[in-house]
C-alpha cells in the first residue's frame, strides 16, 4: 500500500488503538490535517482552542484510561504551546504521544517561518522524542513512540514530522510484533535475594507503613497491595496521585500524606520503623525536610524507575521492577501479622484530626470549599471521576472527596499546573464516556484554559465544571497569610461573571452561594447531557490544614485550632 507520510501517521494511530486526537491545525501540519478527512469515521479529531488544552486533554484521556493520549499541533508556536502539557505529563508519568509539524527538511536550521527546534525544546520534558528525517522511518518511529510512551515508567513522547515527510510517498508497512530496543529495557521482576531482604524487614517491623503511590495504578497492582496490607496488617498512607489505589474506606487506609496530608499519616510516617514505598518517589511535598524524615524507619522502595531508588531517600532494600510482578513474587512468602498497638495509636491520632475537621465546626452564614466538595461527593454517590486544578480547592478535594476506585482522581501533582483541570476533564470524558466527570477548578486556574469552553460546547462534552470562586489565588494567599504577614500582593482577583461567560458559550449554568443550594445544583448538572458550569461563591480566606510549611519537618504541622482552643 503506497501512502503519504500523513496517511501513514493516521494508519499508525489506528493500529495503536487510537480513536480520538486533540489538536489544532497550522501550515506545517496541514498535509496531516488533510489526510484526516479520509479517516474521519474511525479517528475523531477534537479541535481545541489552545494547544495547551490539547496536551492536557491527551493527558486526561491517558490518566482516565491508562491508554496513550494523542495531541497534535503545528510547528513553532503550535508546538511550543504544548510545552506545559508535556512537562505536566512528564512529571506525573502520563503516557501521551504528541505529533508536531515541522518546516520542510531543507528549511531546517534556516530560521524559516514558524521554525522552532522542538525536539531541542522538549528534550528535558519528554521521555523521548524524534525528528523524522526519512519517510521510510515514519512507521516504526510511530510504533516506537507508542511503545516507549506506555511501557516502563510511562511518559510523553513527541514526534516532530517535517512537512515534506508528511507529503512524501512510500510503501506503508507497519512493523509487527515486539520492537527490540537495545537501550530500552524496563525492569520487570526482582531477584530472590531482594525479595528475601524485603520479607526480612517486613517480618522484623513493629510499626510498618505502606506509602502507596501512583505507580500502583499504573502497574495495576491494586489487589496485590491490598493483600500485602491485609495479610501483614500494615496501615496504608496515600500520595496525592496514589488516591484510589485502595478504597479510602478500607480500614487500613489512613489517608493522604505530605504537606496537606492527614496529620495521622504524617505522624505515623515519622514514628514508623519501616516504610514500604510502592510506586512513589519521595517528592519534597510528601517528605518535608529530608534530614528529619522517618529517621527511625528502614525503607523498602519498589519502583519501576531505577533512578528513583536512593534519589531522595536511601533505601535499605531498593527494588527496581514492575510493582505487580514484584509483589506477586513476594506475597506467597509473606507471613500473617498483626500490629495491634500500632494501628491503635494511629486511630488515636485520627480521632484528634476529626475533632479539628472544619465540617464539624459551626460555621453559619459562610460557604466553605470543604463543604462544597464534600457535598459534591455525597450527591454524586462518591463515584464520579474528579479532575482538579491546582490550589486550595485541589488539596481540599483530596481531603474531602474520598475515592474508592483507581484512576478516579486526576490531578496535576508533580508540576502543579494551573489550567490543567478543565481540559484534562474533557480529555478524560472522551476516554471513559460512561463515567460521570467533574472538573473541580479554582477561579484562577480555570481562567487559564477557559477558552476550552468552546471545545466542550462544539463537541457537547458531558463534563460538569465546578468553579470554586474565592476571588483569590487562594493557595498563594494562604502562604501570604502565613509567611508574608497577610500582604496580599497580586492574589485578589476581580473575576468575570462566570455564569454570563457560560451563557456566552451557550453552556447551562448556576450560581451557588448557600450550602442548601448545593444538592439542587449538583442534580441540575447531572441532569444535563452536555457541559454545565456551576459557580460556587465561597469564603474568601479559607485555610487548608494541616500544613507542613515547605522544607519543615513532616511532623511540624500547622493545625487548625480545635473549637475553643
Amino acid at each position: 500500500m503506497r501512502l503519504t507520510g500523513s496517511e501513514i501517521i493516521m494508519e499508525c494511530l489506528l493500529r495503536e488503538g487510537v480513536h480520538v486526537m486533540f489538536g489544532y491545525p497550522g501550515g506545517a501540519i496541514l498535509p496531516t490535517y488533510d489526510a484526516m478527512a479520509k479517516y474521519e469515521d474511525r479517528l475523531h479529531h477534537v479541535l481545541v482552542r489552545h494547544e495547551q488544552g490539547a496536551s492536557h486533554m491527551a493527558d486526561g484521556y491517558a490518566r482516565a484510561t491508562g491508554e496513550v493520549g494523542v495531541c497534535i499541533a503545528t510547528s513553532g508556536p503550535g508546538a511550543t504551546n504544548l510545552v506545559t502539557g508535556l512537562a505536566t505529563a512528564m512529571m506525573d508519568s502520563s503516557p501521551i504521544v504528541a505529533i508536531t509539524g515541522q518546516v520542510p527538511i531543507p528549511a531546517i536550521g534556516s530560521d524559516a517561518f514558524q521554525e522552532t527546534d522542538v525536539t531541542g525544546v522538549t528534550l528535558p520534558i519528554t521521555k523521548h522524542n524524534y525528528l523524522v528525517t526519512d519517510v521510510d522511518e515514519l512507521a516504526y518511529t510511530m510504533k516506537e513512540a507508542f511503545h516507549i510512551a506506555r511501557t516502563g515508567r510511562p511518559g510523553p513522547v513527541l514526534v516532530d514530522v517535517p512537512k515534506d515527510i508528511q507529503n512524501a510517498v512510500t510503501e506503508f508497512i507497519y512493523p509487527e510484533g515486539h520492537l527490540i530496543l537495545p537501550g530500552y529495557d524496563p525492569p520487570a521482576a526482582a531477584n530472590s535475594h531482594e525479595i528475601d531482604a524485603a520479607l526480612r524487614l517486613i517480618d522484623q517491623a513493629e510499626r510498618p507503613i505502606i506509602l502507596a503511590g501512583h505507580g500502583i495504578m499504573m502497574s495495576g497492582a491494586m489487589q496485590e497491595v491490598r493483600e500485602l496490607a491485609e495479610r501483614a496488617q500494615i496501615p496504608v498512607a496515600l500520595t496525592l496521585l496514589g488516591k484510589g489505589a485502595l478504597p479510602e474506606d478500607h480500614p487500613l487506609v489512613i489517608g493522604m500524606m505530605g504537606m496537606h496530608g492527614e496529620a495521622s499519616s504524617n505522624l505515623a510516617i515519622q514514628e514508623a520503623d519501616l516504610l514500604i514505598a510502592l510506586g512513589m518517589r519521595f517528592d519534597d511535598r510528601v517528605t518535608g525536610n529530608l534530614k528529619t524524615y522517618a529517621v527511625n524507619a528502614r525503607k523498602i522502595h519498589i519502583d519501576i524507575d531505577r533512578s528513583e531508588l536512593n534519589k531522595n531517600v536511601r533505601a535499605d532494600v531498593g527494588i527496581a521492577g514492575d510493582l505487580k510482578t514484584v509483589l506477586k513474587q513476594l506475597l506467597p512468602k509473606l507471613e500473617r501479622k498483626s500490629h495491634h498497638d500500632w494501628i491503635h495509636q494511629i486511630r488515636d491520632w485520627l480521632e484528634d484530626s476529626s475533632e479539628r475537621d472544619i465540617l464539624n465546626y459551626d460555621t453559619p452564614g459562610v460557604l466553605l470549599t470543604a463543604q462544597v466538595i464534600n457535598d459534591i461527593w455525597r450527591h454524586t454517590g462518591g463515584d464520579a471521576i474528579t479532575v482538579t486544578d491546582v490550589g486550595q480547592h485541589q488539596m481540599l478535594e483530596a481531603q474531602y472527596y474520598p475515592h474508592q476506585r483507581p484512576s478516579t482522581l486526576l490531578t496535576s501533582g508533580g508540576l502543579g499546573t494551573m489550567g490543567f483541570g478543565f481540559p484534562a476533564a474533557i480529555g478524560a470524558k472522551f476516554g471513559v464516556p460512561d463515567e460521570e466527570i467533574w472538573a473541580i477548578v479554582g477561579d484562577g486556574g480555570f481562567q487559564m484554559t477557559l477558552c476550552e469552553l468552546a471545545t466542550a460546547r462544539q463537541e457537547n462534552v458531558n463534563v460538569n465544571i465546578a468553579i470554586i470562586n474565592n476571588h483569590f489565588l487562594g493557595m498563594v494567599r494562604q502562604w501570604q497569610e502565613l509567611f508574608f504577614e497577610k500582604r496580599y500582593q497580586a492574589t485578589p482577583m476581580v473575576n468575570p461573571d462566570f455564569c454570563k461567560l457560560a451563557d456566552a458559550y451557550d453552556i447551562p449554568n448556576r450560581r451557588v452561594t448557600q450550602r442548601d443550594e448545593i444538592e439542587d445544583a449538583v442534580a441540575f448538572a447531572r441532569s444535563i447531557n452536555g457541559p454545565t458550569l456551576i459557580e460556587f461563591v465561597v469564603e474568601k480566606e479559607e485555610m487548608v490544614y494541616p500544613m507542613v510549611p515547605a522544607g519543615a519537618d513532616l511532623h511540624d504541622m500547622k493545625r487548625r485550632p480545635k473549637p475553643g482552643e
Partner: protein
Amino acid sequence: MAQQPTVNKVTVVALVENEPGVLNRIASLFRRRAFNIDSLTVGRTHKPDISRMTIRVDAGPEYARKIANNLQKLVNVIDVRVIDNEPHIERDLALIKVRSDDAYSRNTLTEICDRYPARIVDVGPHVAIIEMVGTETFVEKFIDEVRPIGIIEMIRTGIVSMGRGTRIHDTSVTRRDLARAALQASAMRNGRIV
C-alpha cells in the same frame, strides 16, 4: 615510577547509539540533574553505529551509580557500566606546547621525556610540542615536571577507560537495524518487498 592511586574518582562507561542529538541528550541530562562531571570523552568503537563514552566523576561510586541509572533511562544509551574497583586500563593523552628556546629548556625536556612515555612530536625554533599518554595521574605528574620550563599551550583529551578481561555488554546491532529488519520481515510476510 610508582603510579599513585587515584583518589575518589570513578569512571562511567556508556555505549551509545551514534545518532544525531545523542550527545545533546546526555549533556542535557547532566545539566538538568546538576551532575558534576570531571571529564567526558566520546569516540568511535569497532561498530560504526555505536560510540563509547567515558565519563569521569569526581565523587564516590554511589554518585556514579546515580549517573549511570539516569543514563540508562535514555533510549539511545545501550549500556552503562560503572568502573569502580574492577581492574581496568585507562589512558589520558596530553599535547603540551613548551618553551624550548635555549639549551637548558631543550635538555631538561629531553631528560624528562626519557623517563615518561612521552614523545617530542614537533620542534620549532622557540617551542616544542610534546605528546604524553598515560593514566590521568601519570599525565598530571608529567605536567608538573614540565611546568617549570614554561607551558605555552596545552590540551588533554580526558581519560578513556576499558575494563580488563570482563567485557562491557556489546550490542552489535542498533535499534535502527532492528527496526529495519522487523519492517523487512513483516514486508516479506505480507509478500511485499520494500
